[in-house]
């Protein structure tokens, strides 16, 4: 278990990996990777029971990155956990790489399912959670969604079903960075009030600062105490968090930094 300052250092390291990987690939999604970094760091270095040497350990907690374009953040966390060599991160998006542009369960150790087409991860997570119940297993299933992703109808089909099946072994997180590809979510397709929507669908909802590692840890602790219903942690985040000129900029949803921008970003993340 890492101390608080070590967790913060780990998150910063993951952000550095993200910038380097995407700059090297000259393509990718920095904004949503950086907004999800603290959530993913807390999951991989505090919450999840997992074994990097045995990625298919049957009793592992499952983590599903439904917003598959944030793959660089997950790859960095997996590499830092020891699933594969850190050097491999720099092959992101290259031919024959195990670091595909979006999550691919067939190529990357530690990935639970392929994602990319938005809206599919929560349904998959329900299947994992139902299987755990059938088999009497104690593992939890965690699913990370984007707030823009909540535009997808399938998310709400899954929202209804998870509550219907009373899945208290399913914990979802929304990386609410407020921006989707075309602009602010409130302007493109307003999904607010998200907390009231999920509550109305039968979920226990926790709203938390998605960049406060301590508060995120507390939120996950609380989530595991809830019985009889699934839990949604709405994490308020900043798109592009940690790099001043990327913060709250829709243009960095799917645009790589130039070489100069990458250097500047890495300086900010020292």
């Amino acid at each position, binding site marked *: 278990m890492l101390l608080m300052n070590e967790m913060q250092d780990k998150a910063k390291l993951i952000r550095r990996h993200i910038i380097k990987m995407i700059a090297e690939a000259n393509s990718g999604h920095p904004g949503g990777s950086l907004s999800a970094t603290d959530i993913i760091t807390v999951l991989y270095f505090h919450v999840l029971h997992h074994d990097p040497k045995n990625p298919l350990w049957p009793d592992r907690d499952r983590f599903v990155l439904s917003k598959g374009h944030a793959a660089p953040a997950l790859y960095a966390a997996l590499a830092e956990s020891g699933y594969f060599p850190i050097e491999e991160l720099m092959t992101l998006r290259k031919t024959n790489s195990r670091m595909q542009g979006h999550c*691919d369960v*067939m190529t990357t150790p530690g990935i639970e399912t392929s994602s990319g*087409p938005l809206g*599919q991860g929560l349904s998959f997570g329900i299947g994992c959670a139902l*299987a755990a119940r059938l*088999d009497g297993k104690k593992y939890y299933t965690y699913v990370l969604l984007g707030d823009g992703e909540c535009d997808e109808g*399938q998310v709400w*089909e899954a929202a209804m*079903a998870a509550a219907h099946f009373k899945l208290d072994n399913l914990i979802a997180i929304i990386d609410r960075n407020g921006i989707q590809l075309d602009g602010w979510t409130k302007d493109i397709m307003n999904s607010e009030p998200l907390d009231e929507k999920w509550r109305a669908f039968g979920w226990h909802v926790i709203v938390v600062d998605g960049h406060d590692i301590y508060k995120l840890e507390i939120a996950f602790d609380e989530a595991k105490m809830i019985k009889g219903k699934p839990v949604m942690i709405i994490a308020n985040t900043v798109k592009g968090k940690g790099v001043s000129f990327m913060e709250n900029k829709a243009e960095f949803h799917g645009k790589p930094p130039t070489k100069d921008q990458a250097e500047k970003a890495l300086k900010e993340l020292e």
Partner: protein
Amino acid sequence: MCAESSMREAYGKTLVELGRENKDIVVLDADLSQSTQTFMFAKEYPNRFFDCGIAEQNMMGIAAGLAASGKTAFASTFAVFASSRCFDQVRWSIAQPHRNVKIVATHAGITVGEDGASHQAIEDLSLMCALPGFTVICPADAIETAQAVRAAAADVGPYYIRLPRLKSAVLYGDDYQFVKDKAMMMREGKDATIIAIGLMVERALQAADELAKEDINVGVMNMHTVKPLDSKAVIKAARETGAIVTVEEHVRQGGLGSRVAQIVAEYAPVPMSIIAIADCYCSSGKPEELLELQGLTAANIIEKTRKLVQKKPKPRGASGWVF
């Protein structure tokens, strides 16, 4: 061929047997369990049955998650929903990760009848065959359905099994042995081979009987597994009989005819006739009347086969065929 057999009922009963034999069999449905017959399993094993409501996209994702956690997941709904409503979910949550999900889709084709074009899956084979790694099966009677479902359960990977609403003739006895990837030769012939699937197999057999009276001897092949296609059987039939007719309750593009034609064109070019639904949506009506409108009848198979046999090039001594 007067006795009738229900493929859907065979599916429901087989699921119950499989559930008894294997505790890792789970079944999902999207509010159609009475029609798909999964209700039989639900009654026996309520804990392993998940009705997902009218939400097919979510159902396919849940099935994928269950499969990823060691379950063999059967997911059922009408073919029109199973194939096109949730194609993206089937593509990325099931096909690409090669999940152990068996989609058993009922009410396929125009023989759904009165419900009309909205409920007639006529593009499903084309869609599902396009997915890398999928096995696609279209059984012809109840015995074959039961065995295909068992074969799917015994194998690891994604399957699409297509069943009609209508009953079929009884084609096989209990001694029948379904072998995936291996077409079932129902009748040998020398003048042409009719390759058919599903409800069209019995019509192909009727056509062959009638043609025999005119001294036209045609083979009939039940190509139950549309993907992977038994290309060896197709090549053999083309080389030995010199003409191929295909019959399917599906649009012309991308189904059985297209897939057979790819093999014939590449490895054994012979004249072909593809009997299928025209490039259009159909309408409400009695199943037999709709089949008649689309030429999916023994009479049309007879006519097309007769013409094709007449068109065949004549053999020219030992040097082979003249084209």
